[in-house]
């Protein structure tokens, strides 16, 4: 045996070696086992002293043959007897170990280059964490061999050769090196690689020959040998067989590459690509497994009739949850909604904005014969109270707009229908319905008990509040309508019957002229308010100069009476009421400006005309030269036939004014007390129904709700600024154009194109119809139902509907 004398590489080269180059180190001296530490020290010492061929007689010591630091020479260690665990552990390059027999666990643990030959079996964990070097096993391997092996690019790869088979959990977490399992006389004839090899293996190669029963498929794949594999195997198998003294098997083992296969790790990229491979995708599972079992369309198939496709969160067309609708004129504007005559002030404003002032002012006459008298003078203008514009500054000046219609001539009548209608009563209600019916082309006979038409407007409203020329102007326009007016024609039962027989429809508009009284002591000395007012307007007022006048009833008529009393020279006017005075507006303002005292609650006990005192139930009293009572009037209906029902003194009517006798309508104060505007409105509504009845078409009263204020976008409009020229409208000076511009056109399209411009998807367009009509339409295939058209519309035309 050639053993070099060179000791240059020895860590302890200070001394020349003195021991023989071949030595035997025994693990048992005199029948006494030496400890692993001592045996290790002896081996290291021997090598340090130059020994290059060692025979170790082992007695179960740990880690024999490892850590022989490289000296450039081979150190050959032959182990005899029972080796302990971790033979050749941390074995180094240049070390060659031959174990003559079976090895215990962990042979070649963290092998760093030693060649270890086991002439027998290895038990568990052979070459665990091995990195370099070679392990030759003559027999088989136990469990968990070849685990955690490494591959360091600085060195040749690790080799592990097992002649027979290996046990379970082979090559777990193997990261490098080549393992060869020859499969000769496998102890498990069905499986040479044991249960579940290669779990977590990421590198290296396992060549094997013989049957296996599975491997960790997520980590490695089974392949045929390539020529390069075969070349390597056939090159390296010779030395192995020689080392384990099985040269005779060379031919059998190298007979054909087809006898061999290999397991190699998936690369990370391959692993990622393989993830979920081999398993069906969910769509395939649904179609091929799920629906194959439960039926096409899935478990709910029989119940579902919509397409099975998915929908986006923001769809168009029929899949939208909501859709916009251009609801032009669906709602009444608050002004028209508040006006009993439904005068469309918004349309008037629209026409003015279109420079059609004449048309605008004429439009009103379609609704009322008295825009100058009523709207412009005596009406409390409920329209203005309701006007949306009031939310930002002041309502439209509809009063003045009404007055502008004063000079407008009577509108053209429709072609004559030849139908005859009688109207009994020439007050506002009767005139209104006569006006409307005449416009419709019917032939009207109007019967008035007095010598003038105009009713309470004429008789009872103080001239101060209603200039005579205004009323006369409008009465004269009324006269152009061709209504046959029969003045001084009181109607009694007999005349009623005649009228009834001669006309298709009779409208009762006799007003309420029976003053209501209270039967307190001395009530017979009290003047009815309505009589008092008629006296004034007929030019025969009673004398009141210097008098104390008391008016019982502090409503608006009471206030008119108070004003008249002042103007007749009364020195003191007191109005009394049992409750908070109902008077409001202009009447109230005028009366209090004269100094009218208002007392409430006062319940009258008696009037002592002699002492000129009015006594109240609370014990107080006031001076009263004259006491006027104004607590309302009831109609005088003694002429009516039994076919016309009355309730509590008034004629019972439907919403359209029809009485229990289908030929008879009743309107105005004869049906319920109200304002002049209510009477005019009732006249118009009744005329519509009568017209329908005469012309024999189905009449459906227009049922419109008033637009909710929040639908109208007041933000577009600047509050009027009286004295700042920065774009605001001037509040102080009235002009029709300025008022028209103030109008927000609630519920009525002003054709501003805001919706068209705002629609991001270009779904809205404007189309024109015949006669200058237009509408805005939506392309459902573009619209997503976002509601921006609703949100931006100044007039509240667009609305969202559920898209069913």
């Amino acid at each position, binding site marked *: 045996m050639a053993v070099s004398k060179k000791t240059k590489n020895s860590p302890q080269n200070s001394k020349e070696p003195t021991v023989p180059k071949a030595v035997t180190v025994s693990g048992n001296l005199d029948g006494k086992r030496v400890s692993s530490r001592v045996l290790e020290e002896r081996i290291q010492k021997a090598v340090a002293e130059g020994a290059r061929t060692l025979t170790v007689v082992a007695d179960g010591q740990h880690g024999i043959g490892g850590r022989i630091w490289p000296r450039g020479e081979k150190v050959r260690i032959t182990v005899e007897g029972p080796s302990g665990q971790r033979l050749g552990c941390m074995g180094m390059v240049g070390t060659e170990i031959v174990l003559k027999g079976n090895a215990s666990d962990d042979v070649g643990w963290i092998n760093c280059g030693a060649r270890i030959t086991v002439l027998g079996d290895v038990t568990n964990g052979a070459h665990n964490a091995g990195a370099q070097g070679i392990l030759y096993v003559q027999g088989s391997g136990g469990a968990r061999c070849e685990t955690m092996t490494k591959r360091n690019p600085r060195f040749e790869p690790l080799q592990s050769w097992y002649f027979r088979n290996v046990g379970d959990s082979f090559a777990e977490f193997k990261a490098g090196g080549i393992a060869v399992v020859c499969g000769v006389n496998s102890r498990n004839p069905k499986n040479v690689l044991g249960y579940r090899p290669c779990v977590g293996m990421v590198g290296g190669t396992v060549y094997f020959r013989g049957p296996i029963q599975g491997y960790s498929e997520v980590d490695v794949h089974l392949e045929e040998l390539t020529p390069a594999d075969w070349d390597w195997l056939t090159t390296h198998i010779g030395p192995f067989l020689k080392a384990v003294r099985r040269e005779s098997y060379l031919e059998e083992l190298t007979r054909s590459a087809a006898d061999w296969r290999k397991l190699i790790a998936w690369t990370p990229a391959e692993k990622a690509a393989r993830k979920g491979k081999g398993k069906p995708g969910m769509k395939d599972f649904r179609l091929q497994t799920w629906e194959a079992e439960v039926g096409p369309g899935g478990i709910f198939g029989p119940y579902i009739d919509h397409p099975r496709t998915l929908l986006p969160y*923001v769809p168009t067309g029929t899949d*939208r949850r909501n859709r916009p609708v251009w609801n032009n004129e669906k709602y009444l504007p608050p002004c028209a909604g508040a006006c009993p005559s439904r005068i469309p002030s918004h349309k008037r404003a629209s026409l003015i904005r279109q420079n059609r002032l004449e048309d605008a002012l004429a439009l009103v006459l379609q609704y009322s014969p008295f825009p100058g008298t009523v709207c412009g003078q005596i009406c409390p203008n409920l329209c203005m109270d309701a006007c949306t514009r009031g*939310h930002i500054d002041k309502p439209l000046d509809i009063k003045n707009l009404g007055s502008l219609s004063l000079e407008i001539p009577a509108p053209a009548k429709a072609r004559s229908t030849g139908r005859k209608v009688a109207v009994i009563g020439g007050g506002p209600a009767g005139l209104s319905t006569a006006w409307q019916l005449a416009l419709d082309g019917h032939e009207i006979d109007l019967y008035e008990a007095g010598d003038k038409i105009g009713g309470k407007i004429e008789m009872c409203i103080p001239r101060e509040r209603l200039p005579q020329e205004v009323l006369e102007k409008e009465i004269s326009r009324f006269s152009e309508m061709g209504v046959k007016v029969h003045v001084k024609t009181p109607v009694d039962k007999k005349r009623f019957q005649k009228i009834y027989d001669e006309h298709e429809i009779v409208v009762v508009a006799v007003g309420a002229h029976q003053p209501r009284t209270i039967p307190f002591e001395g009530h017979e000395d009290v003047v009815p308010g309505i009589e008092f007012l008629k006296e004034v307007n007929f030019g025969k007022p009673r004398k009141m100069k210097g008098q104390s006048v008391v008016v019982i009833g502090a409503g608006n008529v009471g206030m008119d009476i108070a004003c008249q009393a002042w103007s007749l020279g009364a020195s003191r006017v007191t109005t009394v009421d049992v409750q908070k005075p109902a008077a409001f507006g202009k009447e109230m303002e005028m009366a209090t400006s004269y100094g009218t005292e208002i007392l409430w609650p006062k319940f009258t006990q008696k009037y002592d005309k002699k002492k000129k005192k009015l006594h109240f139930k609370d014990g107080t009293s006031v001076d009263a030269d004259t006491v006027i009572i104004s607590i309302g009037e009831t109609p005088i209906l003694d002429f009516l036939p039994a076919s016309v029902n009355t309730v509590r003194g008034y004629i019972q009517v439907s919403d359209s004014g029809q009485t229990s006798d289908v030929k008879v309508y009743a309107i105005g104060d004869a049906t319920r007390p109200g304002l002049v505007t209510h009477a005019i409105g009732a006249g118009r509504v009744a005329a519509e129904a009568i017209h329908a009845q005469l012309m024999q078409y189905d009449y459906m009263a227009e049922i419109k709700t008033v637009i909710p204020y929040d639908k109208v976008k007041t933000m577009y409009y600047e509050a009027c600024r009286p004295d700042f020229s920065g774009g605001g409208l001037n509040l102080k000076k009235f002009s029709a154009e300025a008022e028209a511009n103030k109008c927000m056109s609630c519920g009525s399209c002003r054709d501003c194109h805001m919706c068209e411009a705002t629609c991001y998807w270009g779904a809205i367009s404007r189309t024109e119809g015949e006669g200058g009509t237009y509408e805005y339409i939506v392309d459902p295939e573009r619209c*997503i139902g976002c*509601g921006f058209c609703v949100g*931006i519309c100044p007039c509240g035309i667009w609305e969202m509907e559920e898209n069913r």
Partner: protein
Amino acid sequence: MESAGQLIQSDELTYQDFPYIIEWREDRCTRCGKCTAVCPVKAIEPTVRTQRVVRSEGSTPVPTAKRITVSVVSQSRDIERYCVGCGTCSMVCPTEAIRPVYNSHHRFLIYKNKGGNAYTRGGRRNDPSPSTVEQLKFTRISMLTDPALDAGRHEFHIRTLLGRNLPPEQLPVRVEGRKLVKDAEAFIPPVREIFPIRIGSMSVGALSPHMWEGLAMGVAYLNEVEGLPVVMCTGEGGIPPRLLKSRFARYMILQIASGYFGWDEIVHAIPEMKEDPCAIEIKYGQGAKPGDGGLLMAYKVLKLIAEIRGVPQFVDLASPPTHQTKYSIEEAVAKMIQAMSMAWGFRVPVYPKISGTRTAQAVLNNLARNPYAAALCIDGEDGGTGAAYNVSMDKMGHPVASNIRDCYLDLVKQGKQNELPLIAAGGMGKSGHLAANAAAMIMLGASAVDIGKYIMQATANCLGDEYNRCNLCNTGRCPRGITTQDPKLYRRLDPDMVAQRVVDVFRVADTELKKIFAPMGRSTELPIGMSDGLSVSNREIADRLKINYAC
């Protein structure tokens, strides 16, 4: 005349009163309208806003005023249209211009009683703080003391037994020769081996068809492709006959609740069933709303629901909080279990589900004496629901941890801890730690846990949370299409995606359970009741649950 500009605002709320405030960025918004189109509650709407700017240019003050009116997206301050914070607006917004922001000092509940209507919603207890089970940790980590296992390397078999598991000496069997022979007419309780996390009861009706089928399909995939025996409970709302008659019926736990909806159809289908169902669950209570019943609103009772449930369309369907004609525990439990067992020839485990309650042990002890009782499911206060009174959800119910623990220790005293499985439900995975919560409940004594809200969140991106986000389940306007019968909404939801996500969830739960059980050396048997592996850093909880205190 008084300017109407001074509108009375005494009944209006401020944005600060609302739980979510919309943050809208005018500079980014293109006014495309997607947000307002998609908002499920119309909490946002387009409108216009005006700016009036007075400027002076030049060297002396010369004012010019400029008005500009622009379209904007505005949040409603109507309490009936409160922003629920679902965030669908921000999801569809192409320019990240809008999002709801949680307002921690809202006063929503103070006002949400308008019209005398008590607040009802879906979701669960609005309490985002960590539940008891969430605080439990696994502190027995074996390295050198026990044979520790490696979740990545070792094979695990995470399974539990559903059904009464008789001890060997009580089994009515004897060995004759080499054969096991059952005593004549003796009853061996049916037992199923299932994955210990189940999908809890959610009915057809509560869920949309796409959601329900997605869940069922995912469960089938897990069983047939992944080899994970996950089961789901149908809830009570009818079961499509196609499913009942399919082989997939074996993955289904059929629920019977107090409304008995669809049960005539199920009974009709029994002779045609290829497979027995996994089990029958008798619902007595629900953790989210103890003492409160269910109500499927008429507008959700469309054709599909009506036919499957066997009811007329467009009527309210009430599941009362109590079963009718049951007057005592003994009678109620005995007759329901008997009746349901008989329907499938005593081959199917039948067990009751109750809401978490201090009286749970009374029920348990009754079941322990009933040979046909297969388990007890306890649904704790953190459970979810499709519809309940807010007060029931927020303030009623019992935490599941101590409830299960008490019951388990009771069983231990009787020596029946391995016999009668306990199933824990309510808030499992509430904070995202599904496997950890499940493992903790198992180690406290549960044999399995149920999930509901978690699976909706994980598989269908349910937007609900404990800050009362979304929680619109009761309205039929679920923006995700999970709890609605409106095809326009549920067609947003891809059943294949739901199924795939079910698979993902359970595969991960399986992995994570392995990770938890491996260091305890458990790979084939669940550590049920292995409470020495648990710790908590709260002395009171530790004492109450009889587990270790560690800090």
